[in-house]
């Protein structure tokens, strides 16, 4: 009975969404306050209905109701509760329902908290948001109904893909979707503004918190996914330039550009058309990402549920949504007037530079991701290529270096007209830190590569630049130090958030450099009692035990890792075999220290010629891995701090004109 309720309310939600897509828009055109206000209620009702539907699906998974096809295909009665719940979105139908839940949640959030947004704009935003909702609700109901029944009822389920039986699945997809779908708000604001034909500083101020929230979620979601791949796949790496990873990285790059360009709209009423275009494109890339993951037209290590049939439907949604928005942009953008000038050296220029490089970077990743498809298309299926890390390392990294190097300078420049002379001393100091860092790294790691040392220097340059800018903003070095604490508190949280996020980039660079330039990898086979030496470490296989987990069998190795100074640690990598799915997973043993991760994977055992047992063992030393995660966490914290700024909060008090 409960699944039928879930399906029924989903139909109701579709009807409500259809009404919401039309009524507030009509209200805005007619200036009818009642119709516009109706939009708020409809948004909340829509969210409420989708929540009921989603909850009923969770319920079916929790009680292991195998009369539902989706539960039978993706769950098993022996599975731990956490994985029963996260199994809801570990498959196509459930994940689309989560997608729509988040979409309607953002609509409801705007309806409830967006009190200070002009009523006509808000009504239009809610309408546009609901149009997307209609498309995806129809998609679920007509092609991906999660509430399909099975008759006769099977006695047990087929289990969830073992790779997905991990706490990572509980958090990664919801966060990623909050990011992807969060950009729908920026999209709706952009389309609404184009319809209204008016974009001003207030629009910039209203759209920014939504874009920022989506950016925070997307950043955290990507990082969590990367971390998950790092410890679960057992390949020692954290980023593989896989199409599905790129699909989340492309909107991230554009979303980051959007965050920066919307500042110019807010502060200077400039870059209006460009910001609107970015808002449209960012969400378009989120939709494209959803399509690439779901359609199965590209191969990926992360694709779990694909179906070209549904891919076509998503493509249709893409065509209507994005095509409509871009068409509207082509028609309406000319009427939006930019009356805005700035000097070549100014904050505006710096942000333009930022946008330029982020957009080029995004184009490169997009090209690399889609190129195999285009080539196959152009050659009529004759030539196929796969594009991997070498392409991205050669093309993408050179674009990112000038971008991140500018982080140290940009925030120091003043609006309208900056003076280079003022920055001289500050930049000299940052350059000094950079050189000293390069020098120290070369002494500590004399075997190079030199580029790694330069990259560490780059991180120091950024960090020094950020800290100097922050220090001069709160006048840290001014004589009356008592007032400094007060200044720190008063100094805007959003500016401090920016500094923190930029520092995060510097820390991230330290991690990326260490983990990619200095990584050591050994693949070998080891018998019990055997020892291998890597750098200053010796690794010994002590024993291998066989055991049982809740729904899998396991082989568990015991290794001891001894450093040259005789401190030793014990590591337990595991290999798990899931009988229900007939699939094995590796559980890497990872020992994290400030300077390096020790990463150990145990593979299949085999008999050697003299009938001894040997295990394939892969051992990685990943230097600075901790800093990589710390960097991303700092960026997320920076975003949250900026988001918590009350002047920018979701309900923004009307600012007095200065």
């Amino acid at each position, binding site marked *: 009975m409960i699944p039928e309720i879930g399906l029924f309310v989903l139909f109701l939600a579709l009807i409500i969404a259809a009404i919401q897509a039309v009524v507030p828009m009509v209200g805005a055109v007619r200036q009818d306050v009642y119709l516009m206000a109706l939009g708020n209620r409809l948004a909340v009702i829509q969210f409420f209905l989708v929540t009921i539907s989603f909850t009923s699906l969770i319920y079916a998974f929790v009680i292991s109701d195998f009369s539902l096809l989706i539960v039978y295909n993706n769950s098993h009665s022996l599975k731990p509760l956490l994985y029963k719940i996260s199994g809801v979105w570990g498959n196509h139908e459930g994940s689309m329902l989560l997608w729509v839940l988040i979409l309607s949640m953002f609509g409801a959030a705007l309806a409830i908290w967006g009190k200070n947004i002009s009523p006509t704009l808000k009504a239009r935003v809610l309408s546009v948001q609901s149009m997307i909702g209609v498309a995806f609700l129809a998609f679920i109901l007509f092609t991906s109904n999660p509430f399909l029944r099975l008759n006769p009822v099977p006695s047990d389920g087929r289990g969830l893909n073992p790779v997905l039986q991990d706490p990572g699945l509980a958090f990664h997809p919801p966060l990623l979707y909050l990011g992807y779908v969060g950009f729908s708000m920026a999209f709706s604001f952009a389309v609404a503004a184009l319809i209204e034909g008016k974009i001003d500083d207030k629009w910039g101020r209203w759209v920014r918190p939504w874009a920022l929230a989506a950016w925070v979620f997307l950043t955290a979601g990507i990082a969590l996914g990367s971390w998950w791949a790092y410890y679960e796949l057992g390949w020692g790496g954290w980023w593989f330039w896989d199409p599905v990873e790129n699909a989340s990285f492309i909107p991230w790059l554009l979303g980051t550009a959007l965050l920066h360009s919307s500042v110019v709209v807010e502060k200077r009423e400039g870059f209006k058309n460009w910001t609107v275009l970015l808002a449209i494109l960012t969400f378009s890339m989120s939709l494209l990402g959803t*399509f690439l993951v779901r359609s199965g*037209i590209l*191969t990926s290590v992360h694709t779990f549920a694909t179906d070209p049939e549904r891919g076509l439907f998503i493509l249709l949604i893409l065509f209507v949504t994005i095509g409509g928005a871009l068409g509207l*942009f*082509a028609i309406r953008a000319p009427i939006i007037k930019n009356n805005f000038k700035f000097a070549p050296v100014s904050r505006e220029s710096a942000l333009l530079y930022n946008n330029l490089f982020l957009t080029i970077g995004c184009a490169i990743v997009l090209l690399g991701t889609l190129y195999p498809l285009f080539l196959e*298309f152009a050659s009529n299926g004759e030539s196929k290529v796969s594009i991997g890390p070498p392409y991205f390392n050669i093309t993408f990294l050179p674009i990112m270096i000038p971008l991140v190097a500018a982080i140290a300078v940009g925030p120091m420049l003043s609006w309208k007209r900056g003076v280079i002379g003022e920055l001289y001393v500050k930049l000299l100091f940052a350059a000094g830190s950079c050189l000293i860092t390069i020098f120290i790294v070369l002494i500590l790691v004399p075997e190079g590569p030199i580029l790694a040392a330069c990259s560490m220097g780059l991180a120091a340059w950024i960090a020094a630049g950020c800290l100097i800018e922050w220090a001069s903003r709160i006048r840290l070095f001014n004589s009356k130090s008592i007032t400094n604490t007060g200044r720190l508190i008063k100094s805007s949280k959003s500016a401090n958030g920016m500094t923190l996020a930029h520092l995060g980039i510097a820390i991230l660079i330290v991690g990326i450099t260490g983990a990619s330039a200095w990584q050591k990898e050994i693949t070998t*086979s080891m018998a019990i009692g055997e020892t291998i030496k890597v750098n200053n470490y010796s690794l010994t296989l002590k024993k291998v035990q066989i055991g049982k987990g809740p729904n899998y069998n396991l082989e568990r190795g015991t290794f001891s890792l001894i450093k040259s100074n005789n401190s030793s640690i014990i590591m337990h990598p595991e290999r798990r075999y899931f009988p229900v799915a007939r699939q094995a997973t590796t559980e890497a043993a990872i020992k994290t220290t400030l300077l390096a991760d020790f990463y150990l994977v145990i593979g299949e055992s085999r008999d050697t010629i003299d009938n001894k047992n040997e295990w394939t063992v892969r051992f990685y030393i990943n230097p600075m891995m901790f800093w990589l995660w710390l960097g991303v966490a700092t960026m997320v914290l920076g975003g949250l701090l900026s988001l918590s700024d009350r002047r920018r909060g979701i309900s923004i008090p009307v600012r007095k004109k200065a």
Partner: protein
Amino acid sequence: MKRFILIIPIIVFIIIIAVLSVMTLQTKEGRNPSIVPSALLGKEAPNIELPMLARNIPGGFKGSDLVGRVNIVNVFSSWCVPCLAEHPQISWLATNGFPIYAINHRDNVSDASNWLKKHGNPYVAVGFDPEGRASLEWGVGGVPETFIINASGIITYKHIGPITKEILKEKILPKLHEAKR
């Protein structure tokens, strides 16, 4: 001019959508996105040395042994069911004068030897690759896979998956004749 610039995004977008739709339709009709030809096509066969499997089985070879005539390299394992399915075709090729080398992929000595004893050994030489190290060099994604190498030691063709009778007739034989030219 400005108008034209504003139209660019939608034009680019429509092109992307068009290509994606065609590819999705082809995927629906059975295009397999995971089949990517080897990066080694048109390049020299990797010169990694493969040890012999056992004393009584001719074997051990390296890339440079494959120069001088058209050769076939077949990747197989005793645990691989499709390998058994293609074994008659491999044997047919061998009896019809095509020299075939084997890479025994992620296997163990006793299973592989027994398999060859039971089903016949059509191979000129068998190279033992228990850890898949050589297979990695050869760009092997899974078993079975078959390479055609011309007289100058260049890989001219790679087939992924079992060689059925149809594939033998329609793909492998024509490619072998091409390689001879």
